[in-house]
């Protein structure tokens, strides 16, 4: 039998929900461990090693210390995988990028603001090459496992490039716009199986935008449904402050 790939797990600025989600794979954890060796994972174990085949990295880069560590991890690993919104596009952390960082720090620490250095919250890919990404806040178990099995089967993983609305239709959900909610599904990248609308809640856009989104049209929808321009832009920014791509009309 082939030797198992050596896997390490790291976290940067984020809520560690994606990491926790892995410990939540109760039904599959033992199956996974049949195929991989977890060699480093600060949140769950003491060991540290010099090199690994696959590094799963959660969180965004937001301090000088983070920058150093992510370069170091990239140097030690063959494959680097960004887990969750923070690592993939900066996630919610990136909301702060819209304000001056000094202001932000002052809001929080007042006079002591210089004690704690901060940088704009950016995805891993702003600093190093990222091989694969698992979107979502938090990422879903299904997609993580699909990615892992793809890689283990030697197959390049593919991720959805269409909107959450698609999955809503496939699941025959009632659209939440019909009950006065304002949903980000139309331009949010699918993959979660339209989780929130399936539970009667609107999509907040946690998986980032589809490639080439029509942002102007989306903002229009938000305004047509009762948000002010200011609120519409805020809603767009919740998870997408770093997303720059636009559609070809």
């Amino acid at each position, binding site marked *: 039998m082939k030797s198992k790939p050596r896997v390490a797990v790291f976290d940067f600025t984020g809520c560690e929900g994606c990491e926790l989600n892995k410990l939540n794979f109760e039904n599959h954890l033992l199956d996974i461990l049949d195929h991989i060796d977890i060699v480093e994972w600060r949140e769950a174990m003491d060991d540290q090693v010099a090199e690994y085949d696959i590094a799963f990295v959660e969180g965004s880069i937001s301090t000088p210390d983070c920058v150093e560590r992510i370069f170091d991890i990239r140097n030690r690993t063959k494959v680097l995988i960004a887990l969750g919104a923070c690592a993939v596009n900066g996630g919610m952390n990136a909301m702060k990028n819209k304000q001056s960082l000094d202001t932000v720090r002052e809001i929080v620490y007042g006079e002591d603001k210089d004690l704690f250095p901060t940088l704009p919250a950016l995805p891993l890919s702003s600093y190093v090459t990222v091989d694969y990404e698992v979107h979502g806040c938090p990422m879903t178990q299904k997609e993580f496992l699909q990615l892992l099995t793809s890689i283990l*089967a*030697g*197959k*390049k993983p*593919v991720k959805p490039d269409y909107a959450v609305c698609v999955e809503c239709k496939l699941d025959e959900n009632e659209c939440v716009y019909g009950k006065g909610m304002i949903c980000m599904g139309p331009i949010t990248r699918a993959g979660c199986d339209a989780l929130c609308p399936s539970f009667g809640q609107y999509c907040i856009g946690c998986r980032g935008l589809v490639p080439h989104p029509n942002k102007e049209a989306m903002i229009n929808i938000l305004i047509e449904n009762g948000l002010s321009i200011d609120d519409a832009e805020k809603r767009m920014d919740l998870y997408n402050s770093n997303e720059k791509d636009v559609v070809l009309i």
Partner: protein
Amino acid sequence: MIKTVNIKPENFKELYFPTLAEITEVQQFTEKEKWYKLSLLDGSNLGHYPGQFVEVSIFGAGEAPISITSAPNSYGSFELCIREVGMFTEMIHKMKAGDKLGIRGPFGQGFDVNELYGKDILIIGGGIGIVPLRSLINYILDHRQDYGRLIITYGARNSKDLLFPEELELWQSNPDVEFHQTVDYGDESWKGNVGVITTLIPPLDLDLKNTIACITGPPIMYKFVLLTLQSKGLQDDNIYMSLERRMKCGVGKCGHCQINHSYVCQDGPVYHYPDLKLIREAI
């Protein structure tokens, strides 16, 4: 009232069920292109025409439409040439002789070899476009007396990207074949033409009435080749070309390859140019 064909269950077709084939030979042509020889495990003949394609499947990876590059034969083998560009093609590039694949097809309309009967054939192949054309070339060589002149023009990005190196030499040395090749970018080792494929066409001395041009290449090539042929005076009626589109089913259901009213997997990939002109999105 909708015209529904009233069909019986015995006529329903298992459209998505592949048959197994074994890779019998692999050859690496370039960094990104490999050539495969396969035989169906049930011993049957593929039974294709030049220009047709098959859906190749690797379990766990999916399916991809791939042109058949060999000429029809009766001894149960066929050949593919595949460029590594993405998920599926990466997987197939890892496979070796003895490995097994699924095959569906052959599908689509190829080059109508009866329509070409007795004509001079002008082959224009850009890059990987030579793959389906090679099937036609070898078919013509197998039935040499049925056709007039065989003029092959072939262009690649650079000399390292030229496919079927041994065959190119055979065609070059065959007195019955007029062979011209060019590369977009030359280097020290390259002694031949340098320039895009359209530069090969003006010098050709063609019997315009009796010449049929068969074109396959990357999408951007078509516009320029057509302009060049038109300025040479070749009638649209004398032009056939093969298109590429995204495809999933190969049998006219999944909708991906549709251009206006036409399904490339059914009406194409090889089109008669006058028909293609009616399809506005095609080129």
